C-alpha cells in the first residue's frame, strides 16, 4: 500500500468501487447485522449478546450524558455512531486478509513499467474521502444543532461580535457615540466593524479548519498505521508485527474516541449561549451582575 488514494477495483457506471468502498460496505453490513440481531432478540431479561450490547450502548450513553447533560438526546446518536463506525472501520484493518489479499497491477509510468500490490479491502478511515465526509457530517450537524438550539441571531453572535452593537443601534440605543471631530476616534469607529467582520470570517474559517483537522487526524493516523503494518509484515512475517498490531489496536480505539468526543464537545460548545457560558464560567459573578442590573 503505497498510494494515498484508494485503489479502484471496478466501476459501476461512473461510480468507482474502490477497496475502501468495499470496506465501507463490509463495515455497514457488520453494523447492520449486529443492530438487527440485537433488535430481533431484544428481551427484558437479556442474553449474553444483548448484555454486551447494553454494556456498550448504555456505557457510552452514560459517558456522553456526563458531558452533554440535557443535550444528550440529540448529541448521543452522532457520538455513538461516529465512535462505533470509525472503531469498526479502524479495527477492520487489523483483520487478517484485509490489506493483504489482493492482486498485482502493472502501470506504465515515465520511468517505465511499475508493478504494485492492490489490496481488495482497505480500511475506509485510510481514505480521505471517508474521513472528510465524516468530518463534514460532524461540522454540519454541529452548526445545524447550534442554530436550532440558539436561534440564528445568537448563533451568528458566536462569530460576529458586532451583531449586538447593530441590534442596539437598530433599537436606537448605541453603546458608543462617534465623535466625528476627532479623526482618530472616527478612524477607529469605522475600522472596528471591518475588523469585527474579518474576525467573524476567521472564526467561520476556523470551523472549517476544525473539520479538516478532524479528517486529517483520523486519515493520517490510520493511513500511517496501515503503512507501518504493511511494511513490517513485508520484512518480518511472524511475531515482530504483533507489537505494531497492538499499537494499531490502541490507535484505532483512541482515534475513534477522539473523533466522537471532539464532535460531541464542538456540538456542546457551539450550542451553548453566551449567557449559559458566563453562568458556567462564573456563577457568582453572574449573580453579582444580576444584582447590579437590579
Amino acid at each position, binding site marked *: 500500500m503505497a498510494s494515498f488514494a484508494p485503489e479502484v477495483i471496478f466501476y459501476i457506471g461512473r461510480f468507482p468501487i474502490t477497496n*475502501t468502498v468495499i470496506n*465501507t460496505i463490509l463495515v455497514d453490513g457488520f453494523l447492520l447485522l449486529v*443492530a438487527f440481531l440485537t433488535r430481533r432478540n431484544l428481551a*427484558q431479561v437479556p442474553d449474553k449478546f444483548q448484555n454486551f*450490547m*447494553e454494556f456498550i*450502548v448504555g456505557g457510552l450513553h452514560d459517558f456522553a450524558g456526563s458531558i452533554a447533560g440535557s443535550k444528550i438526546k440529540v448529541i448521543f446518536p452522532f457520538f*455513538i455512531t461516529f465512535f462505533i463506525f470509525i472503531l469498526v472501520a479502524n479495527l477492520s484493518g487489523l483483520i487478517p486478509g484485509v490489506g493483504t489479499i489482493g492482486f498485482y497491477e502493472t502501470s506504465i509510468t515515465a520511468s517505465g513499467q511499475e508493478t504494485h500490490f492492490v489490496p481488495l479491502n482497505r480500511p475506509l478511515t485510510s481514505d*480521505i474521502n471517508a474521513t472528510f465526509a465524516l468530518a463534514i457530517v460532524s461540522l454540519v450537524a454541529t452548526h445545524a444543532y447550534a442554530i436550532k438550539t440558539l436561534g440564528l441571531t445568537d448563533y451568528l453572535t458566536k462569530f460576529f461580535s458586532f451583531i449586538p452593537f447593530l441590534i442596539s443601534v437598530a433599537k436606537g440605543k448605541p453603546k458608543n457615540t462617534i465623535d466625528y471631530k476627532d479623526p482618530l476616534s472616527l478612524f477607529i469607529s469605522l475600522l472596528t466593524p471591518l475588523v469585527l467582520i474579518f474576525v467573524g470570517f476567521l472564526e467561520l474559517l476556523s470551523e472549517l479548519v476544525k473539520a479538516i483537522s478532524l479528517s486529517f487526524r483520523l486519515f493520517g493516523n490510520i493511513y500511517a498505521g496501515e503503512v507501518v503494518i504493511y511494511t513490517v509484515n513485508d520484512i518480518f512475517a511472524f511475531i515482530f508485527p504483533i507489537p505494531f498490531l497492538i499499537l494499531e489496536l490502541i490507535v484505532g480505539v483512541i482515534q475513534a474516541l477522539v473523533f466522537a468526543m471532539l464532535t460531541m464537545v464542538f456540538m456542546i460548545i457551539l450550542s451553548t449561549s453566551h449567557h449559559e457560558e458566563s453562568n458556567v464560567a462564573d456563577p457568582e459573578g453572574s449573580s453579582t451582575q444580576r444584582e447590579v442590573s437590579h
Partner: protein
Amino acid sequence: MEVLQQLGFNPILFVAQIINFLIILFILKKILYKPLLDLLKKREDEIKKGLKDKEDAEVLLLKTQEKETQILKSANEKAKKILSDANDEAIKIRIKAEEQALRESEKILDQARRTIEQEEKEAEERLTRKIGALSLSLLQKSLVGVFGENEQNQILKKATKELERKRLL
C-alpha cells in the same frame, strides 16, 4: 486542489460516504439505540420502582411489627387482667360455695338431728306402748287362778285406765 487529488479526493466518493454515514446513522438510531435505550430506561424505572416498593414494604413491615407488638402487649395486659379478675372471681365463688356448703351441711345436720329425735321419740312411744301391752298381758295371765273373772276384769280395766292415763297404751 492538486494536493486533494494526490490524496485521492473524489467528489463522488465523498458524497457517497456522506450519504452512507447518514443512512447508517438513521438506521442505527431507529433499530439499535432507541429500542435499547428505551429498554434500559424501562428496566431502570422498574428497578427504581422495585426499590421504592421495597422501601415502602420495609416501612409497612416496621409499622406492622410495631402494631403487632402493641397488639401483643395490649393482649397480654388484657389477658393478665382477665386472669386476675378470674382469680378474684374464683376466690369469691369458692368462698361463697364454701359458705353455702357449710350452711347446707348445718341445715342437713339439723334436719338429721331432728329426724333422729323424732324417730327416737316415736320408738320410745312404740316401746312404751309395747311395754304397756306386755304389762297388761302379763297382769292378765298372772291374775288367772288368783282372782275371779269379775275381779280380773275390774283389775284389768283399772290397770288399762291407769296405763292409758300414763300414756303407756
